[in-house]
């Protein structure tokens, strides 16, 4: 017996040994490379893991976080958001001049701006970019915000023969090479901030035309005027960026080079981080715990809200307000984020996530306070009884709760069901399905209760609130409230930011009282970041990171 064991061991060693010997010499190279990096003056280079490949680096067609992040590195808008999410002048010389009626923005560009190839960047490059983004032939999907420019909505849905006329009528003009004038359909209090988002970046017209359908596909088919240049793009593998010496603020860009490796598997990301092949990686599940309390642990609070949606026609008992309130109130948000999510997320205290600006230089959550009733089992039981009485029922029929089938979403689903059973004695059935299917079912009102998420398109409460009006295609709950519609309309028309903020608070209070949706948590994301990396900006929506101000210690 012992002989056999020895044999097995010997064999195993041989098998591993042969493969290891073949590449032994490469090993030494690796260790010496590491030694060089930790020399006296730190190399201004870093490696980042990213979970997805940017589908295309074209600011008109981009829809994903990956694409926006990379475009934000190689190009720039009139403004750039700083570490607090406030717009600071980018390609624009200073803040916009806004007309009395809040509809016209006049913006002057910096002197001597150039594209990365040295050719001059003009105000007309913004005009052509906006028009291209709205042209139906571009097949852009995420252009509704650019559509807020006067005549924008009409251009998005224009018939081929009307396109040229609608383009000419669009409310954006280059008054001269350095002055841009944008006219809006109606006032948008947060429009300056929007101009920092990649959808509003300039495009070099002749270059885009020359590349045609290939624009944004490879390093030689991309051009920007941002802090970095895309040097190499091995698809699905890595993107290599280098500092752009022609960037207007090149003197303040310290990072010389960074490589983005496409790593989908969180465990591999952590392994690469542990072997110093990555300086920034996402943490999920158990890895969050592993890094908790260490200097590498970095949390980013996102402008993303997770909530339950109650479909009132599919499950008629959900048309009862007390039932909806009871179901929401019976979920212990604190336990949810601490024992299930464990990623720095915070329990919801309303629909609009913490960190969202109110359009009046304040944080909405601080202005509004907690509009959502707290976790309260006794109260929830009471409300349930009241609701059942009103409905003439003795108990709720068994209903389905639909959610994504990712690990995290499934755990959330289990948690909610357990809470209902334990706190209310309510039985529900879990229905985890793929993400695409979940979105489809949500859009087609084919659910009873559904766990959904919404991430901000822009930093303002409206991105979370106008979706619940009775005419919004996103409101698939069959809940409708004329009072709510009116408040949202009032906020949209209100030109005074302070008054608008108040109306929005009122609207959220109404929504949280009616509770067509039951907010669960405000999402956070956790990273492991090498302590030597300083000044990395982790924006709370749309963009993963901004390295303009990053340096290596």
């Amino acid at each position: 017996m012992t002989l056999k064991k020895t044999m097995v061991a010997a064999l195993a060693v041989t098998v591993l040994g042969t493969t290891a010997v073949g590449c032994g010499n490469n090993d030494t190279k690796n260790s010496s490379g590491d030694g060089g990096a930790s020399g006296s003056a730190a190399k201004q280079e870093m490696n980042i893991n990213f979970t997805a490949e940017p589908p295309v680096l074209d600011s008109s067609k981009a829809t994903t976080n990956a694409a926006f992040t990379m475009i934000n590195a190689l190009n720039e808008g009139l403004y750039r958001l700083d570490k607090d999410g406030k717009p600071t002048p980018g390609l624009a010389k200073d803040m916009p001049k806004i007309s009395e009626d809040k509809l016209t923005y006049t913006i002057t560009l910096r002197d001597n701006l150039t594209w990365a190839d040295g050719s001059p960047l003009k105000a007309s490059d913004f005009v052509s970019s906006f028009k291209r983004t709205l042209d139906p032939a571009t097949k852009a999907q995420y252009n509704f915000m650019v559509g807020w420019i006067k005549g924008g909505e009409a251009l998005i849905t224009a018939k081929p023969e009307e396109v040229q006329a609608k383009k000419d009528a669009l409310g954006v003009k280059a008054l001269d090479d350095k002055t841009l004038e944008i006219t809006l359909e109606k006032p948008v209090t947060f429009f300056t901030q929007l101009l920092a988002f990649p959808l509003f970046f300039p495009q070099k017209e002749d270059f885009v035309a020359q590349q045609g359908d290939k624009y944004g596909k490879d390093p030689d088919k991309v051009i920007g005027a941002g802090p970095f240049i895309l040097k190499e793009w091995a698809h699905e593998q890595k993107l290599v960026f280098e500092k752009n010496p022609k960037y207007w603020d090149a003197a303040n860009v310290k990072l010389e080079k960074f490589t983005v490796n496409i790593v989908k598997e969180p465990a591999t990301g952590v392994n690469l981080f542990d072997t110093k092949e990555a300086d920034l990686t996402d943490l999920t599940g158990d890895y969050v715990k592993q890094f908790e309390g260490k200097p590498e642990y970095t949390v980013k609070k996102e402008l993303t809200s997770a909530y339950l949606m109650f479909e009132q026609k599919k499950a008629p008992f959900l048309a009862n307000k007390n039932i909806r309130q009871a179901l929401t109130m019976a979920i212990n948000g604190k336990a949810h984020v601490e024992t299930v999510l464990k990623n720095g997320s915070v329990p919801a205290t309303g629909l609009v996530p913490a960190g969202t600006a109110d359009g009046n230089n304040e944080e909405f959550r601080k202005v509004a306070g907690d509009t959502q009733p707290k976790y309260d089992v006794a109260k929830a039981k009471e409300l349930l009884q009241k609701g059942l009485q009103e409905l003439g029922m003795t108990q709720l029929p068994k209903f389905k709760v639909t959610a994504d089938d990712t690990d995290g979403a499934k755990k959330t689903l289990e948690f909610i069901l357990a809470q209902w059973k334990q706190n209310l004695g309510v039985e529900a059935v879990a229905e985890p399905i793929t993400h695409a299917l979940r979105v489809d079912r949500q859009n087609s009102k084919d659910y009873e209760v559904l766990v959904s998420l919404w991430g901000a398109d822009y930093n303002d409460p409206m991105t979370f609130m106008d979706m619940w009006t009775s005419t919004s295609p996103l409101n698939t709950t069959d809940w409708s409230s004329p009072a709510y519609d009116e408040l949202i309309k009032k906020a949209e028309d209100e030109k005074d930011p302070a008054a608008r903020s108040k109306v929005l608070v009122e609207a959220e209070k109404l929504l949280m009282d009616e509770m067509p949706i039951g907010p669960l948590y405000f999402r956070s994301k956790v990273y492991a970041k090498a302590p030597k990396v300083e000044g990395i900006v982790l924006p709370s929506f749309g963009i993963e990171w901004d390295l303009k101000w990053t340096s290596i210690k």
Partner: protein
Amino acid sequence: MLKFVIRRLISMIITLFLITTVTFFLMMNLPGDPFGEMSQKMSAAQRAVLYQQYGLDKPMFQQYLQYMGNVLKGDLGVSFQYPNTSVNEKIAQSFPASLELGLWALLIAVVIGLLLGIIAALNHNRGLDYAAMFTAVVGVSIPSMVLGPLLSYYVGVKLGWFPPGLWDTPKHRVLPAIALGFSTVAILARLMRTSMLDVLNQDYIKTAKAKGLSQTSTVIKHTIRNAILPVITVLGPIFVNVITGTLIVEQIFSVPGLGKHFVQSIQTKDITMIGGLTIFYSAILVVVIFLTDILYGLVDPRIRLAKGRK
């Protein structure tokens, strides 16, 4: 022989046609919107314009005819996830990595598998035989989704011998290739062992020994050369198996291969990508089967005749 080849060719084309058709209708009926999340951020009017731009508003049968026409021309369409990139380009970008990974895995499997098989056969029913077969069984019982993370963590991070992921240098190929090839080791080792035992019992081996040939010479010149034939015949299908089975290993080691597109395209309902990948992989499989059939026919006339008579 020509008749046989033509017959096989026709059946291959019919198979591909059926696969393409079935795939088309299955993918069109997948629940979900090809614009995914973005579909929520569009007005109904805009969505209608986009559907028109992509030809999704046409009747299903018309879309089918158009799709088949394009596929015949070798055009698999434009991916919904990757605007500006055709499915053909995406395959061209990603397949080389899968192929390379598959070839390395196969190489490892062949070298180790054959060695184990030979060692086992030469030590029939002795310790080394059991040890070799035990290793082979371990190989087949540990799936790559378990072996991959173990290798990445222990060999990659703890021992630091090889990078735990990515695909830059030859060094980066080692761990994913082992993870992918290990289960094939078992198959090849067992096959080689059986085949070796068969050959070792043949009269000509006894003759060779009787002639006074050395043990090494008998084994190398007579036994292995004869025993390896059945192994070579299974390499074709195994090869296809390995390169189409890279999905999990690619994910674990961040290999920029084709596998992940399968899962991702289904999750996002990227219909053109789903269709394109299915057709591409089916084509590889069908062509390899076709070539194997012809090779068999060439090698063994009985197969050709039997089929010819039907």
